[in-house]
């Protein structure tokens, strides 16, 4: 199953790689349990930095589309076809949107919401703690 990336495209290379691997799974080109190339092999084949491929693999593993089994290598996750429809970024946006909506309903200003969000992200003590 061949994948293609465009180094001149606006989409980041790691994102293109993730999309191509998901496309390959969705089209049946590779199946759950199939072995994927090592990071080094894929990076050399595409003439990319190892870190680009490593990032794509890391995020795919987070999303349970692939699974790494130590020295044995990387494989397509058994539930890849179900898991790859889940868009984590979209879910995060939806959660934050919901939280912000609730805050605004209570009368909080955008500035107060921004400060609280920044403090939480930086693990600083928030009001009431």
């Amino acid at each position, binding site marked *: *199953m*061949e*994948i293609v990336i465009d180094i*001149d495209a606006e989409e980041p290379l790691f994102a293109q790689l993730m999309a191509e691997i998901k496309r*390959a799974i969705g089209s049946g080109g590779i199946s759950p349990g199939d072995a994927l190339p*090592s990071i080094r092999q*894929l990076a050399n*084949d595409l*003439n990319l930095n190892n870190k680009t491929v490593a990032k794509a693999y890391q995020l795919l593993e987070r999303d349970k589309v692939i699974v790494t089994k130590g020295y044995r*290598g990387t494989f397509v996750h058994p539930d890849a076809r179900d898991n790859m429809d889940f868009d984590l970024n979209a879910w995060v946006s939806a959660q934050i949107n919901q939280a912000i909506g609730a805050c605004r309903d209570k009368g909080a200003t955008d500035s107060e919401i921004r400060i609280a969000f920044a403090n939480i992200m930086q693990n600083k003590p928030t009001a009431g703690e």
Partner: protein
Amino acid sequence: MPFNMSENAVLAITYAVFLGQIFLISHYFPKRLIARVRYVVDNFPASDYPKLYPNAGPNFEANIHRKLKLFKTVNNGIVLVGLLIIAAMLGGGYRPDPMGGDELFVMFYFFLQFFPFLIVAIKEHKQYKAMRQAFKEVRRTADLKARTLFDYVHPAAVFAAVLCFGLWIFYYLSVKGWDQTWGEEVYITVGMTTAMNLIYAWIIARFLYGKKLDPYQASKDRMKTVEAIVKVLVYSSIGISLFNMIAVAADEYALEAFDPVFTSLYMQYCALIGFGVMIGTAKVEDFDFSVYRDTGKAGEPA
């Protein structure tokens, strides 16, 4: 003489095998290599396939044909040298040395035969480097299949290589004596053969997982090329171990008079493996040369 064989019989075998070496390595293989290059240059000219010849200048095809003629001439000269060696041996009343050592002339002649091929290999390496430097494609492709050693060579061949290596070490050290103090020669011999096999393993890993030599080559053609290289190295490893065992056995059983024969046969085996497997597995007639056409904007059809 070993096995009560007459000296003339040993000489006849030596001359016949050496003649085989002369013609196989300096006549037959150069002829096949020239035909292979001519096929590519004549059927896929620089005007239509510029990516294949990034450094093609004016009169490129004429220059290539001139260089092929030079390659042929040099190899013909090496054949002549080989025949002169045989003539000198016949005229000088050569007799095989029962203590061994005559294989050196076979080895030195092989190095002479190998030299033109080494030049070709260096030129090929420079060609690939020029192609990589000229590579400006924005679309990059890769196969989503993990490559393993056994995709390219049968496990039995790898097992045979490991087994032969182990057997050779065991036999060699047995002959030297397990309870003896081993001299420098033993450590050097075992060390060099081990190092050679490790180098082979490194080269195989480089071709399996490293960057593409030819950035344009189609995936299926790359697989064929890698398959050829892996097989060459695995079979070469088997050859080294077997040759070493035969060399040790020759000393053990007073067969040193056959050392030139064994050495020549081993050199021919190396050439057969190195060249024969390559042209048999990676046939240029089956390659996809459309990848070297000019596509106008990089990555898009012209």
